[in-house]
């Protein structure tokens, strides 16, 4: 798979083969610029590869229209962000309800109870109606994890999920992320350069080995 970017195309991603088994947890390890985030964006259909294929849960993303890729992402992918990316005017509960409105997987009358249940599972049952600005970083990331699980996705991608957290919280969030993904039978793909997070995952891939474009770049 090949991904080129920019006005003067530069190959930023060149991966001959990467397979992730359903239900497993895989870490993508590497320094900044090694293509971790780009790979996650290609896998989630945010970016389309210039060449090659990305097949997720039996679906070749390149064959989908932009609208179908959006629906695919809404229904089958959960995204956990480095900077939490909660929507500021919405409460914790509403942030978790948000992706349910983009997919037709959870019946309307069950959405609220599903969101409450997810927030309960990340120990935020008492913070349902708090807005992001009223939550600590750790709490915000826990809302982010609950939001990623909202539509029962087959795949959870987490881009540096602990990079914005205080060191003491890394283990707690890592354990939570892995455990809820296991409970939901979701595949977990984590991009990080944090070893203490990656050791919670079943397998770790080194992006510098995986991505020949990154390794062939002059230092």
């Amino acid at each position, binding site marked *: 798979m090949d991904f080129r970017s920019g006005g003067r195309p530069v190959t930023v991603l060149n991966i001959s083969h990467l397979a992730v088994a359903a239900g497993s947890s895989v870490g993508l390890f590497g320094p900044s610029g090694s293509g971790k985030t780009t790979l996650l964006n290609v896998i989630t259909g945010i970016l389309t590869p210039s060449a090659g294929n990305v097949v997720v849960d039996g679906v070749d993303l390149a064959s989908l229209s932009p609208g179908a890729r959006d629906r695919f992402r809404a229904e089958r992918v959960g*995204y956990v962000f480095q900077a939490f*990316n909660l929507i500021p005017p919405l409460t914790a509960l509403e942030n978790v309800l948000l992706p349910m*409105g983009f997919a037709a997987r959870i019946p309307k009358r069950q959405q609220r109870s599903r969101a409450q249940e997810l927030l309960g599972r990340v120990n935020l049952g008492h913070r349902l109606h708090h807005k992001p600005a009223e939550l600590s970083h750790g709490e915000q990331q826990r809302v982010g994890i609950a939001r990623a699980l909202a539509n029962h996705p087959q795949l959870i991608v987490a881009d540096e999920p602990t990079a914005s957290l205080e060191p003491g919280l890394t283990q707690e969030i890592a354990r939570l992320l892995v455990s809820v993904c296991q409970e939901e039978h979701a595949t977990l793909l984590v991009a990080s350069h944090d070893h203490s997070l990656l050791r919670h995952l079943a397998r770790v891939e080194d992006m510098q080995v995986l991505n020949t474009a990154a390794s062939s770049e002059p230092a």
Partner: protein
Amino acid sequence: MSALMLAWRYLHARLPLNVLTALTVGFGVTLIIAASAVSSSTKTSVMQSAGGYQLLVAAKGSPVQAVMSSLFFIDAPTGNVPVEVYRQLKSDRGVARVVPLNMGDSYRGFYIVGTTPDYFALIGDMIGRPVQTRPPGRVFEKPFEAVVGAGVAHDLGLKVGNRFVALHGFIDLPADLADPHERLPYTVVALLEKTNTPADKAIFTRVETIWAIHHQDLPDAWDTPAAETEPAHRDRGAGRKKASEITALLVQGQSYMDLLRLSSMIGKSPSAQAIFPARIVTRLLDYLRIGESVVLGVSWLTTVVAFFAIMISMLAATIDRRRQIATLRALGAGQWVIVRIILLEAALISTFGAIAGVVAGRGAAYVLAALVERMSGLRLDLAPIASADIMTALIALALGILAGAIPAYSAYRQDVARNLSPSF
């Protein structure tokens, strides 16, 4: 969570700014609605008032001034016409009714109009019901008896039995410059019920009173017994002469052909002119239409500026929310969902602005109508909500959605991957 709910939350998150933007829209809509409502009802009201008078005979001069003074009591008369013209019209078989108007004095800024009871019959025909006096009043029978219009009675607190002294002329001058007719006071004998015509803003007396107060004897062969002018006779002295002029005449013809003939006949007179008030008012309204167009143009311009405010505000919000929009896309929101959220936000701002504008515009129109009524006696009948109001609100809404189109397009085109980057 629906796009509408999300748009609502975003709107709420920047409430002060959005309220100000909506108020800017509302201000433009207010101006349009108030200007349109008042101008349209003024035209209707003025045309109805002027249309009730078939022909006006006044001294030569500006026809507009003659109409304003004789029909609306808001300008000085153009002069006087010979009493002979009145006699001529009265004896003409084509004339159904001729009402004399004698003016020259005022009381605290309100015209004193010398006339006959036929004037009230004419007003009654115009408003579709007889003009009533409030009990225990009665129409004047003798000179120096005054029948007071409803607006004047309200403003000056006059009651039946009150006496007052008129002032020569139409301007309430300072005491040292004023020329009061102190020895010849008027007695209020009746207060008129409200007619919603200029009659509400005037005081009426017998036509002979105006001659008497200006030391003139009745014209020859005048059909009022001279004894009835008795208070004026006390003032009899040297230099008195017979009255030979009257300010204006309101004429009702037997037919339109009669009116044309009478107009042509009067037109030949060297000192009088015949005016069709409806034509003058139509011409006047045509002149005013230019001003009305300017006001409406400025109002629409204000509204358009308000929509630029929406556009700028929404564009700033879109730039500000780049990461949030990218997050929504990453969570599965399609490009059109983002477009919908931004258009809904712009539509909500313009809807609130339009609703506030319609409410404030109607409110302003009612206040202006009350002021016009207070100043001129003309009642402006404003419809509770006109189709033009709804159309203005809908145009405002459409403009608001249009104003959101550029920010929505900008959001539609955003680079999701780039904007998701924490370093961006």
